[in-house]
C-alpha cells in the first residue's frame, strides 16, 4: 500500500505541457505551425501516457505525498509546493490529460488557418499544466495557484478572437463573475490558514476533527456560525464561481464565444469541474459541517433544475450544451452535498468524456455549416456527416442517461443517493430537482440532436455547397471520446467499483472521507436489500429519460407544429426561459449599472477633478517644480556661495543643539 510513486515521473506530468507551452508561446513566431502543434501534442500526450501509468500504479496501491520546495517563508507563514497523489487525484489527472490530448489533436483541424494558431496551442498546453497543478497539488496554495491560472487561461481563450467585441465582453464577464467567487475562495483559504496555521492538506485534514470538537465559532455579519462552516461555505462560494452555479452561472453560456475546442476542454470537461473536485478533495472538512453540505446540495439542485429549464428552449447549439453543463455540474454538487463524493467525481469523469464529445461534435457541425451555430438553420445533416452523427448520438445517449452509456451509471447513482440520504427538505428538494432534471436533460439533448441531424433540411442555400464531413483530425478524437462516453460508466461502476460501499474494495479508498452516518451508499445498499418495491427508485430516472427522448422524438424528429403551438400557448413561460430567467438583466440593473455609475463618479470627480487636476498638477508637480527651481538657483557656481552654505549648515545645526540644551 505504501509504495511511493516516482517523483521524476510525477514532476514530468505537469512539466511536459508547461515546457511545450513555453517553447511554443515564446518561440512560436519562429516555428512552423506544424512544429508547434507537434510539440504541444507531444507534451500533452506524454503527460496523458504518464498519467495512465501513474493510474495503474495507484490501482496497485501506490501513492505519493511530499513537498518539493518552499516557495515562500515569512515568519509563521510557510508555503510549500508539493504533490498529493491518491486515487482522487489520478482519476482527475487521467481525465484531464486524455480529454486535453483529444482536444489538442482536434484543434489541428478546427483552428487550421487561424492567424493565432500557435498562440492557441501554447494557451491550451499552458491551461493543461495549470489544471494539473490544481489537481496534483498538496496544499491550498497549489490549489489557489492552479485555480487562478486556469481562470486566466479561460479568460485568454474565451477572448481568443480578440477582435470580436462579443468575445471580449464574454471574456471579461467570465473573469469578473469568477472574481466574485474567488473573493469567497480567498477568504476561505485565509481562514484555513488563520485557524490551522498551515495550508497543507494533510496537516489541515488531520487537525479538523480536533478543531471541530473545540467548537470555535465566529460572527459573520449577523450570523453566528461554526468556524468550519464558515470556511467551507467561503470555499464553496469559490466553487460556485468556477463551476458556474446559480447565481454565478451567467458567465458559462457566454464563454461559448471562445473557439469550440475550448468550450469542450475548459468549459465542459475540466476547468469548470474544479469546484466539484475541490469539494471532494476537501471532504474531510465538508463532512464536519452539515450547514455547508446542505448549501452545496441546495445550490447544486437549484442549478441542475434551473439551467435544464433554460436549455429547453435555446437555439444556439453550443448554448444548449453549455446550459446542460451548468445543469450537470449541479448534479455533481448534489452528489457531493449528499456525501456521495465518489459518485460526484464519477459523474465528473463520465461527463468529461461525453460532454467533450458533444462539444467537439457540435464544433464539427459548426465547422461544416460555416460557423453558424443556430440549430434552426440546420437539419438533415446526418446525410453529410455520418461520423459526426454517430459519435454525437453516443454523446447524447450518454448525457441523457441511457444504459449502457456512461451517463446512466453515474447519474443514476446521484439520484439514488439523493433519494436515500435523508437530510429533510434539503435532500427532498435535491431528489426532485435531479429527477425531473433527467426528463428535461433527455428532452433538450434530443431536441438539439434531432433539429441538427433529422427534422427538415433548413440549411441556407449558400452553405449547402460547403457541407461535408470533417477531416480525420476532427473525427478521430470524436471516436476516441465516443469510446470513453460509451464505456467509462460501465468501467467505473464495475471495474473500479465506485458504487461499492466498503472503502477496501471501492476504488477511492481513503482518498475521500465520508462519515458513516452520512454515507448514502451504505443506506442505498440497505434499501436495496430490504424487501418491498423500490422499482421507482431504481428505474425512475431511466423511465423519465426515455420519456424525455420520446417527447423530443415526437416533437422534433420530423417537422411538426407542436413546438410553435406550445411556445404560443405558454408564451410567457417560453419568453422567460428564452431570456434565461432574466439573470443577465437582473445583474445589469442591480450590480452592473450602479457599479458603473459609481465608477464613473469616482473617475470624473475623484480621479480627474480631485487627484489629477487638484493634487497632482496643483500640489505635487507644482511642489516638485518649485523645489527643483530653488535647488537649481542655489547652485550658482560661485565658490563662496558654496562655502557659505556649508558654514550656514554648521551654524544651523549648532544653534539647534544649543537651543535644545
Amino acid at each position, binding site marked *: 500500500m505504501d509504495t511511493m510513486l516516482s517523483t521524476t515521473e510525477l514532476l514530468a506530468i505537469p512539466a511536459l505541457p508547461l515546457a511545450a507551452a513555453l517553447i511554443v508561446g515564446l518561440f512560436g513566431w519562429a516555428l512552423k505551425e506544424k512544429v508547434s502543434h507537434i510539440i504541444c501534442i507531444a507534451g500533452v500526450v506524454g503527460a496523458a501516457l504518464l498519467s495512465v501509468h501513474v493510474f495503474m500504479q495507484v490501482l496497485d496501491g501506490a501513492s505519493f505525498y511530499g513537498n518539493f520546495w518552499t516557495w515562500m517563508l515569512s515568519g509563521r507563514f510557510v508555503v510549500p509546493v508539493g504533490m498529493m497523489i491518491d486515487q482522487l487525484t489520478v482519476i482527475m489527472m487521467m481525465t484531464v490529460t486524455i480529454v486535453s490530448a483529444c482536444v489538442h489533436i482536434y484543434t489541428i483541424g478546427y483552428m487550421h488557418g487561424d492567424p493565432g494558431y500557435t498562440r492557441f496551442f501554447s494557451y491550451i498546453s499552458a491551461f493543461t499544466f495549470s489544471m494539473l497543478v490544481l489537481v496534483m497539488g498538496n496544499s491550498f496554495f497549489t490549489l489557489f495557484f492552479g485555480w487562478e491560472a486556469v481562470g486566466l487561461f479561460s479568460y485568454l481563450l474565451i477572448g481568443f478572437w480578440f477582435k470580436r467585441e462579443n468575445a471580449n465582453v464574454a471574456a471579461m464577464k467570465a473573469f469578473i463573475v469568477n472574481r466574485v467567487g474567488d473573493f469567497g475562495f480567498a477568504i476561505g483559504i485565509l481562514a484555513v490558514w488563520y485557524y490551522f496555521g498551515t495550508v497543507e492538506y494533510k496537516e489541515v485534514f488531520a487537525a479538523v476533527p480536533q478543531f471541530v470538537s473545540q467548537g470555535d465559532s465566529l460572527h459573520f455579519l449577523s450570523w453566528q456560525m461554526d468556524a468550519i462552516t464558515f470556511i467551507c461555505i467561503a470555499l464553496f462560494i469559490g466553487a460556485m464561481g468556477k463551476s458556474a452555479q446559480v447565481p454565478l452561472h451567467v458567465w458559462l453560456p457566454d464563454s461559448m464565444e471562445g473557439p469550440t475546442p475550448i468550450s469542450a476542454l475548459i468549459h465542459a470537461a475540466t476547468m469548470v469541474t474544479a469546484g466539484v473536485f475541490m469539494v471532494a478533495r476537501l471532504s474531510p472538512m465538508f463532512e464536519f459541517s452539515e450547514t455547508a453540505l446542505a448549501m452545496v446540495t441546495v445550490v447544486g439542485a437549484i442549478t441542475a433544475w434551473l439551467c435544464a429549464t433554460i436549455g429547453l428552449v435555446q437555439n444556439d447549439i453550443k448554448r444548449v450544451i453549455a446550459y446542460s453543463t451548468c445543469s450537470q455540474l449541479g448534479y455533481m454538487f448534489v452528489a457531493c452535498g449528499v456525501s456521495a463524493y465518489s459518485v460526484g467525481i464519477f459523474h465528473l469523469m463520465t461527463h468529461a468524456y461525453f460532454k467533450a464529445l458533444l462539444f467537439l461534435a457540435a464544433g464539427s457541425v459548426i465547422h461544416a455549416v460555416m460557423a453558424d451555430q443556430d440549430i434552426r438553420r440546420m437539419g438533415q445533416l446526418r446525410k453529410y456527416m455520418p461520423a459526426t452523427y454517430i459519435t454525437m448520438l453516443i454523446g447524447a445517449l450518454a448525457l441523457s442517461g441511457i444504459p449502457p452509456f456512461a451517463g446512466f451509471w453515474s447519474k443514476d447513482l446521484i439520484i439514488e443517493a439523493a433519494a436515500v440520504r435523508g437530510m429533510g427538505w434539503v435532500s427532498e428538494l435535491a431528489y426532485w430537482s435531479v429527477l425531473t432534471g433527467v426528463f428535461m436533460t433527455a428532452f433538450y439533448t434530443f431536441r438539439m440532436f434531432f433539429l441538427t441531424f433529422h427534422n427538415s433540411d433548413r440549411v441556407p442555400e449558400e452553405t449547402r455547397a460547403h457541407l461535408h464531413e470533417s477531416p480525420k483530425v476532427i473525427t478521430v478524437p470524436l471516436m476516441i471520446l465516443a469510446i470513453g462516453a460509451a464505456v467509462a460508466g460501465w468501467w467505473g461502476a464495475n471495474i473500479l467499483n465506485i458504487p461499492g460501499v466498503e472503502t477496501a474494495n471501492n476504488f477511492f479508498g481513503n482518498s475521500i472521507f465520508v462519515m458513516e452516518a452520512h454515507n448514502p451508499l451504505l443506506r442505498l445498499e440497505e434499501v436495496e436489500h430490504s424487501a418491498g418495491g423500490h422499482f421507482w427508485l431504481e428505474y425512475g430516472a431511466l423511465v423519465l429519460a426515455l420519456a424525455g427522448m420520446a417527447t423530443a422524438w415526437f416533437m422534433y424528429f420530423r417537422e411538426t407544429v407542436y413546438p410553435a403551438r406550445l411556445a404560443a400557448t405558454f408564451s410567457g413561460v417560453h419568453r422567460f426561459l428564452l431570456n434565461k430567467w432574466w439573470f443577465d438583466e437582473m445583474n445589469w440593473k442591480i450590480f452592473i449599472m450602479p457599479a458603473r455609475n459609481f465608477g464613473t463618479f469616482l473617475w470624473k470627480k475623484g480621479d480627474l477633478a480631485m487627484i489629477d487636476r487638484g493634487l497632482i498638477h496643483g500640489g505635487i508637480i507644482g511642489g*516638485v517644480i518649485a*523645489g*527643483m*527651481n530653488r*535647488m*537649481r538657483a*542655489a*547652485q550658482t*557656481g560661485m*565658490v563662496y*556661495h*558654496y*562655502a557659505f*552654505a*556649508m558654514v*550656514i*549648515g*554648521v551654524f544651523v*545645526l*549648532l544653534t*539647534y*543643539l*544649543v537651543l*535644545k540644551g
Partner: protein
Amino acid sequence: MTQVTFPLPDVIPLIPEMFVAVMAMAILLWDLFLPKERKQWSAYAAMATCAVAAALTLKLASPDSVNAFYGFFILDPFASYAKLLIYAGTFFGIVLSLDYMKDEPNTGEYYSLMLFGTLGMMLMTSAPNFVTLYLGLELMALCTYVLVGYQRDVLRSSEAALKYFILGSLASGFLLYGISFIYGVTGTFDFAKAGIGIAHAGADAHMALMLGMVFLLAGMCFKVSIAPFHMWTPDAYEGAPTPITAFMSIGPKVAGLVIFIRVLADVLPALQVDYTTILTWLAVLTMAVGNLAAIAQRNIKRMLAYSTIGHIGFAMLGLIAANADGYAGVLVYLTVYLFMNMGAFAIIILMRREGIQGELLDDFAGLSRVRPGYALAMGLFLFSLAGIPFLGGFWAKYVVFIAVVEAGHLYLALTALLFSAVGAFYYLRVIKYIYFDEERVAFDFAESRLMQATVAVTAIAVVALGLFPGPMIDICKAAISNII
C-alpha cells in the same frame, strides 16, 4: 636609564596597503621609460595592482579584528569588504579611462594618482583612530583634486578642481576642528577610548562635545556629499574627466561611509539621540536636493551627480537606523551602487557622436535602434538606480528602508519612499529618450572589448544581485559583525 624597546610593528595586516603604495610609485617611474605607443601598459599594471591587492586582502581576511601599528590600524571584516569595493571601483575607473585618456600626456601620473587615492581610501577604511583617518582622508582628497583637474587645458575641469580644493580645505578644517574638541574632552585620538570618554564626560563638557560632533560630522558629510555640504559635487562631477567622475562616485563614497559608520558606532554612541536628529534632517534635505535637482538637469553627468547625492541620502537611512541591519544595509547599498553606477558611466563613455562625448540627455535619443544591447543595459542600470524590483537597486533600498523602519523611524522611511518615487522620474526620462525618441545625429561608438565586457559584467551583476540578493546580504551582515 630606562631601556626603550622599539619592537617592529606588525606589518602583516598592512601588506595590501604597502603593495599598493609600492606599485603606485613604481608605475610613476616605470611610465617614464615606456615608449609612447605602450603607455597603456601603466594602466594594465594599475589594474593588475588592484587585482593583486584584492587577492591579498582576501587572503588576509579573517573574522577577527587585528590591531597593528600600536592601535593606528585595524583589519576587520568590515575593512576588508570595504577595500574590495574600493578595488573594484578603482579597477572599473581604470578600465573606463583606457580609451578616454589615450591621447592625454603623462598617463603614468594619472594611474599612479588613482592608486594613491585608493591607498588613502584603504587607510580610511582601516582607521581606528582620528590620526589615521585624517591621513587617509587627505591622501585621498589630494589625489582626487588633481584628478578632477587633470585636463588642465579644459577650463571647466580646472575650475571644478579649484572649487573642489577650496571647499575641501574648508571641510578638512571643520573636521580637524571637530576632532580637536573631542580630543580636548577625552584626551585621546583612539575611536574606542574617545567613545568611552564621551560616555563618561561630565555635563560641563556637553557644549564642547556638541561643537566637536557637529564639526566632525560636517567634515565627513562633505566627503560623501550630504546636503548642505554637497555643493561641490555637481560641479566637480561635470568638470572632471568622465572616468574620474565614475571613480569618485564609488571609492571615496565607500571610504567616507565606512568612516561614518566607525565614528558613529565607536565614538559617538553616547550622543546617539543628538546625532540621530541631525542626520535625520540632513538625510531629508539630501534626498530632497538629490532627487529634485536631478530633474532639472540636462547634462547626464550632472544628473548622475545629483543621483549620487540622492542615493547617499537613501544610504543615510542605514546610518540613522544605527543597528546591524542598517550598517549592513549601507554596505549592500554601496555594493549594488558600485555595479549600477559603473555600468551607467561605462555606457556614457561609450556614447560618442562624431567624436564628441555624449553628455546631454538628448544624446541618448534613439539608442535602442542603433545598439539594442547597450540600450538594454542602460535600461537595466537606470531601472536599478530607480529601485525597480527585481534588480539590485531594489534590494539596496529595501534593506535600508526595512532597517530604518525597524529602528522606529517610520516617517523617515515614508519620506524616502516619496523621494524615490520622485527620483524614478528622471531615470525613466532617460529610458524614454533611449527607447521612444528618434535618433538625430549618427552615433559613433568608442568600441573597446574591455568596455563592452564592463557593461556586460555590471549588467549581469545588477540582474543577478536583484534575483539572488541573499548571499550579498549575508556577506554584508557578516562584515558588519565586529562593528556592532
